[in-house]
């Protein structure tokens, strides 16, 4: 490049010699020229701004003298070029504008040509050589400015594109995270109802992994009897006035979850573009909890009321009982009359029955603290079986116990838990009685943190939505309607849950109890 520049300016070896000769003659003038040069700069505001003080000016004056000495040194090789490029870069670095550089060069040119005219034997040729030399110097200076400028432009471009790319990637990441981490199911369906978007919560709730469900029809998420109709409902009615709809969702394991959906529609061009986004919340647990809370509140209210009433029943019963005792004594005194004594005994029994009912009811209505002791599931089942076996036989019902391979021990109030089993198995047997025959299974299983007890029968089932846990609700003639209410209370007192899954031909009551151990204080 340096050689190319020299060719362009037509700076010849002869010029170099002339410059060197000039240098020898002009050297005594350099110091003065440099001083005048910086005096001029000091006077100029813009150029002056790059100076920091007299010390610096003195240094700069010295380096300008050196520069002139070298410029007129007669050696113009690559290292000369490098050396002078460095000076140019220094100008760039301190922020000296190119226009000051140009005027400065003009000043030096005037001074040097004046010196040449005054002192040199061949002033015209020397002036020409000096002009070419100074043109080279200007070229070098401009080269450094251009170098810096293009570096700055390249850098700015690079920063800008980096920024743009990073911002876009971050935005994409943000949206992806919003969808992925949202605690709601996010689905995207195309026009045909095929799944095109499937977030992590959807994977968690349904058990279907993204890679296996993308492209599939959303129908596989619906219970069979709802297929088609619900798919349509989800994609159209959801956008209706209230903007949400509840539906059942079939998981991979075949379980049904209740999900409330919101929908957002969008225009799509391609066949496989998403036309509707569905956002769903799994409300299954919340629904169950609301139902349980409602149940507990109802029981508490009815319990308080009824406890008061039950106590009041005891007083008149006491009067009746004592008067019956008095009658009995009178009958005996007058010579026993078997018929009358029998009648008295019947009244006695009835009073006893009422008294027991009151006691049972108070047990149910007035929560009594549990006595939690280590309880063996197998022993519990054995006791229950011993009691129900005869009733089952009488009703011609086949009763089986389905036990886990290893015993399960957990903290429970075992007499009360036994009452739960007797109530549930008793109900199952009674449900089978009218049809005669049938099968009741009492099943126990261990889960990681729970023990699950199921009572299954193949009877006619329970009508949907029957308030079976409500006190005094009974479908049986002569039933007090307390059995399931007491059962419910005992299970919830154990911090467990009870639910029922019933259809004609199969009813399962499932009691789930926490698998806690007794601590020392309880025993």
């Amino acid at each position, binding site marked *: 490049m340096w050689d190319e520049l020299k060719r362009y300016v037509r700076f010849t070896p002869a010029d170099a010699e002339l410059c060197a000769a000039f240098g020898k003659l002009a050297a005594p003038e350099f110091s003065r020229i440099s001083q005048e040069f910086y005096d001029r700069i000091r006077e100029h505001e813009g150029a002056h701004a790059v100076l920091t003080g007299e010390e610096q000016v003195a240094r700069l004056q010295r380096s300008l003298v050196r520069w002139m000495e070298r410029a007129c040194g007669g050696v113009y090789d690559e290292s000369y070029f490098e050396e002078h490029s460095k000076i140019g870069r220094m100008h760039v670095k301190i922020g000296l504008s190119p226009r000051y550089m140009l005027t400065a060069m003009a000043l030096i040119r005037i001074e040097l040509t004046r010196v040449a005219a005054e002192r040199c034997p061949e002033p015209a040729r020397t002036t020409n050589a000096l002009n070419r030399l100074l043109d080279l110097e200007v070229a070098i200076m401009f080269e450094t400015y251009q170098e810096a400028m293009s570096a700055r432009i390249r850098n700015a471009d690079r920063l800008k594109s980096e920024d743009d790319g990073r911002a876009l990637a971050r935005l994409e990441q943000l949206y992806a995270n919003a969808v992925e981490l949202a605690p709601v199911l996010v689905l995207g369906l195309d026009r045909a109802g095929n799944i095109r978007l499937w977030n992590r919560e959807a994977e968690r709730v349904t058990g279907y992994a993204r890679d296996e469900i993308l492209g599939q029809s959303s129908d596989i998420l619906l219970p069979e009897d709802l297929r088609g109709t619900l798919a349509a409902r989800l994609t159209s009615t959801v956008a209706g006035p209230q903007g949400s709809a509840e539906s059942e969702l079939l998981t991979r394991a075949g379980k049904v979850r209740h999900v409330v959906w919101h929908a957002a529609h969008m225009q799509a061009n391609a066949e496989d573009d998403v036309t509707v986004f569905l956002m769903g919340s799994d409300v299954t647990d919340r629904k169950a909890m609301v139902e349980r809370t409602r149940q507990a509140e109802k029981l508490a209210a009815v319990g308080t009321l009824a406890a008061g009433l039950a*106590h*009041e029943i*005891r*007083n008149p*019963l*006491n*009067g*009746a*009982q*004592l*008067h019956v*005792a*008095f009658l*009995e*004594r009178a009958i*005996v*005194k007058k010579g026993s009359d078997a018929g009358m004594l029998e009648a008295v005994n019947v009244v*006695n029994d009835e*009073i006893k029955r009422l*008294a027991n009912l009151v*006691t049972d009811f108070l047990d149910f209505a*007035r929560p009594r603290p549990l006595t939690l002791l280590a309880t063996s599931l197998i022993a519990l089942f054995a006791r229950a079986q011993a009691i129900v076996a005869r009733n089952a036989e009488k009703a011609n019902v086949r009763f089986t116990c389905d036990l886990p391979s290893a015993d399960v021990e957990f903290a429970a109030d075992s007499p009360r838990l036994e009452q739960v089993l007797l109530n549930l198995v008793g109900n199952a047997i009674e449900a089978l009685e009218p049809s005669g025959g049938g099968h009741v299974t009492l099943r126990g299983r261990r889960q990681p943190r729970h023990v699950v007890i199921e009572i299954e029968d193949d009877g006619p089932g329970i009508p949907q939505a029957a308030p079976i846990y409500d006190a005094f609700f009974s479908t049986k003639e002569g039933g007090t309607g307390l059995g399931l209410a007491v059962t419910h209370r005992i299970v919830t007192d154990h911090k467990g849950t009870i639910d029922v899954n019933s259809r004609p031909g199969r009813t399962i009551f499932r009691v789930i109890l926490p698998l806690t151990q007794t601590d020392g204080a309880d025993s």
Partner: protein
Amino acid sequence: MLKSPPSQSPPISQRGPLVLIVDDDARSTRLIAQMLREDGFNVEVVLDGARAIARLTRAPLPDVLVTDLSMPHADGNSVTMFARSQKPGLPVIFVTGYPHLATSLAGEPRPTLFTKPVNYAELLTALLRVLPPDRRPECRP
């Protein structure tokens, strides 16, 4: 119900063991009193806690106290505590529709607890058991 019903009109013993019955249910209480008298007891009846305490301030003090728990003016636990301050170790039987109201404040020996409706034969057995042998009625087994 009775193991050995009386074969003749029972003597009303004035020297039999004294039972103080405290209960605001007048009709049932009088009936118990009548049957107990027939069975050889000396019975006094008061119908509320305040009257029970008043009665317990004078002699003769009862051999056994039969009291309800929930009554006007003073409850069965209070009556028991007062009675035992007058006569330490007095046997006490609670007859109540509210068995959960019995407290340990009543002291020792722990009162026998009957939940209404009370079976007369069982009450009689309990009375005979809590009385010292020399204070049991003569005509009873």
